[in-house]
Structures are given as structure tokens and as C-alpha cells.
């Protein structure tokens, strides 16, 4: 059986490509970042993901009254004018669902299956942690992520995504 030169070359290229892909995957598959470490990094240092993060606890979860208390306490800290903040909704969901829903960016203090409460609030809020020269950030709507098991305030922010009833319903369905 004769195989043309062209076909041989094509097969060779295909084999090289597959081999290269396998090598790349094995080299970078578990790599957290391809950016070099800073100049003064100790030898042996490497980028890594945190391990042993708290995952699904299965409960018991904090009662809604306690969650309201935590949220109200957290909200005025956003600024001087958080006058009479109103809790709009409280949803029991998961950390991962809030990331998937685009409410918060990925953060790695708990696993994605950790049960959390999302509290949405209306009012007059001000965030003071700002870069030099930037005025405090004002918002009339905030989201607070509270660990359902231990009450840690994991995240707080101004995304308006949760104003979409469809998104909120998806989070509720996730309960």
C-alpha cells in the first residue's frame, strides 16, 4: 500500500500538533498563573489555589432574623448616609451560584458549594475603600453575601444584576 508524501507530511504534522497539545496541557493544566513570581520570591515558591476551604455544611443555618441583623449592621458601614436601609430580599443559595449569576467575581474563601445567604438592600450607601483621588462610591442598591453557617460577611457590592427577577428566581430555585 502506497501512501503519498503529502499524506505522510499531514499525518506527521497532526502527530506533532497532538503531542504539543498534550505537553502544553501537562505543563500548564495545573498552573494558577503563568506570570513569573516577583523578584524577591523565595526559591520553591509557586502560585497555588487555597486548599481545605469550607464547603457544603448541610446546616444548621443561621435564622433569617440573625441574617437581617448582620446585614443591617454591615450596610451602614458603607457610609455616613445609609439612612434606613431596606432589606428587599433574602435568598439561601450557594457561593458558586452567586459567581455564576455574575453578582460577585470569583473569590476563594469558601468552596462554591458553601451555603450562603444573599441579602439585597435598598437605601443610600457609600463605599469608602477607594483608590487615591477617587470619591467614595455611592449606591442606592447593594448585595451582601453572608455565610449561612457562621455569619461571616463574605462579600458586599453594588451589582444591579439581582434587580433582574429572572436571576433572583434562579438563585431561589437553587435553594
Amino acid at each position, binding site marked *: 500500500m502506497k501512501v503519498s508524501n503529502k499524506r505522510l507530511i499531514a499525518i506527521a504534522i497532526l502527530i506533532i500538533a497532538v503531542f504539543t497539545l498534550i505537553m502544553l496541557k501537562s505543563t500548564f493544566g495545573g498552573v*494558577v*498563573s*503563568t*506570570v*513569573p*513570581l*516577583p*523578584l*524577591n*520570591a523565595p526559591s520553591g*515558591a*509557586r*502560585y*497555588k*489555589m*487555597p486548599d481545605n*476551604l*469550607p464547603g457544603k455544611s448541610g446546616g444548621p443555618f443561621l435564622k433569617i432574623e440573625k441574617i437581617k441583623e448582620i446585614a443591617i*449592621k*454591615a450596610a*451602614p*458601614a458603607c457610609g*455616613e448616609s445609609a439612612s434606613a436601609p431596606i432589606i428587599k430580599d433574602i435568598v439561601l443559595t450557594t457561593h458558586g451560584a452567586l459567581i455564576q449569576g455574575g453578582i*460577585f*467575581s*470569583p*473569590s*476563594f*474563601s*469558601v468552596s462554591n458549594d458553601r451555603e450562603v445567604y444573599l441579602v439585597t438592600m435598598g437605601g443610600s450607601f457609600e*463605599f*469608602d*475603600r*477607594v*483608590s*487615591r*483621588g*477617587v470619591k*467614595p*462610591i455611592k*449606591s442606592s442598591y447593594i448585595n451582601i453575601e453572608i455565610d449561612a453557617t457562621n455569619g*461571616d*460577611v*463574605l*462579600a*458586599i*457590592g*453594588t*451589582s*444591579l444584576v439581582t434587580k433582574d427577577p429572572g436571576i433572583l428566581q434562579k438563585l431561589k430555585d437553587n435553594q
Partner: protein
Amino acid sequence: MKTKEIIRENVKNVTCRTKVVKVFILLLATLLLISNTSIALAQAHYYAIGYVQPLSSSQDFLGGYAQWKTPQMYTTVDGGFTSQVLWVTTQERMDTWVEVGLTKGWKGNNDVWTMYWAENTPTYNEYQVTSISPGSAGTLHHYQAQYDAWNTWGIYIDYTKVGTLTQSAGSMEVDVGGEITSSQNTLTPTYPQYMQVLDKANSWHYWGDYGHVYSYSDSPFIWEWQDPGTYKLGKDYKQ
């Protein structure tokens, strides 16, 4: 004649009263202004920072790094915060950024001593880091934010990823130092060091080698360079 004089007198009185009313209103407005100013002063925001900007607009950064030992615990009394922070602006703008650091005071609780990170994309979010703890005074930690991939920034503490966010590349400024919400709070001496920026070719440089270095302080908080000209060791504290 007498009637004319009476009318003239009345007109004078009315004019005089109008003037008194005007002066009264002016006084009231001044008092209100003073009171508002004093409220604004009470809510001032303080920085004690060193910062670096690119040598030219085309040499914008792709990340920032600093390390500091956990200081003696700060004191926060106002329901706000006393923080030690690394800020990296993003998207080639000054009003979008990512920050990572250490804070005394979190969400209205003066006693919380924790790591955190935050982003303004311009959607603003703050995240508590519970996977790494500040440790006792003297514990060294590394804080870092860098452009990891297309439109993706990674936030690291001790080379461990604590968050990712979606923003385009290009940092026009990297800042390090204290951010405090009240002059009544205490910023114990903290020594950020080995501050670096990441260039577009993915190489790290010390600030003094790759940018214009500045500092900024709001009294009673102070930023000082311990090695002016080299810019590898800073100090921020309350006077």
C-alpha cells in the same frame, strides 16, 4: 406734608427690615455652611501612601506587588476601618482598580482583623479573605494583583489566589500604604517593602527602576521612605 413724611418713614422702616432679614438669612446660610463643613471634616478620609506611575503612557503596568510584616494590631473606633493596602489601577484608567490588603474593621465591626480584596470595574465589590489569616505581629505576607490572562486579573496573598476579576489590561498607578476613615483610629508603624510593578513583557521591576515614585500623607498619618532614591522600604504610621 405730614402724610408724605409718614410714608417716607414707613418706606425707610420697611427697607431697614428687609436689610435685617437679608442679613439674618446670610447669617443662617453661613451657619449651615459651617455646620456642613464640620460634618465633612468629621468624615474625612486619610491616606499615608507611596505610589508609582509609569515613565511614559505607553509603559503602563500589568501588576503590582508589595510585602509587609503584620504590624501590631491597628485600632479602629469609628465603625469604619484602618487598612494597609496595595492598589493597582486597571483598564488604563484612574477610577477603576483592584486592591488587596489587611484591615482592622470590617462591615461595621471595629474588632475584625482580616485580609480582604476589592474591585471597582466600575461595579464595586469587597471580599473578605478567610482562607489566610494575618497571623501574629511580625508575620510576613506577600500581596499581589496581576493581569493573568485576557481581561482577567488575579489577586494573590502569599502567592495563593484569593480572587479573580474581569477587567482589561493597563495600570496607570500602583499605590501602597495606609487608608483610614478616622483620625481617632490608630495606624501602628507598618513597613511595606520590595514594592514592584509588572511590565508588559511579564517582567517584575522595583518601583525606582521602572517608574516615577511619589508619596502622599494626610496628617496625622505619615508615609516615609526609609531608603529615599531606592524606594524599596517604606513606613506608614500615625504621628
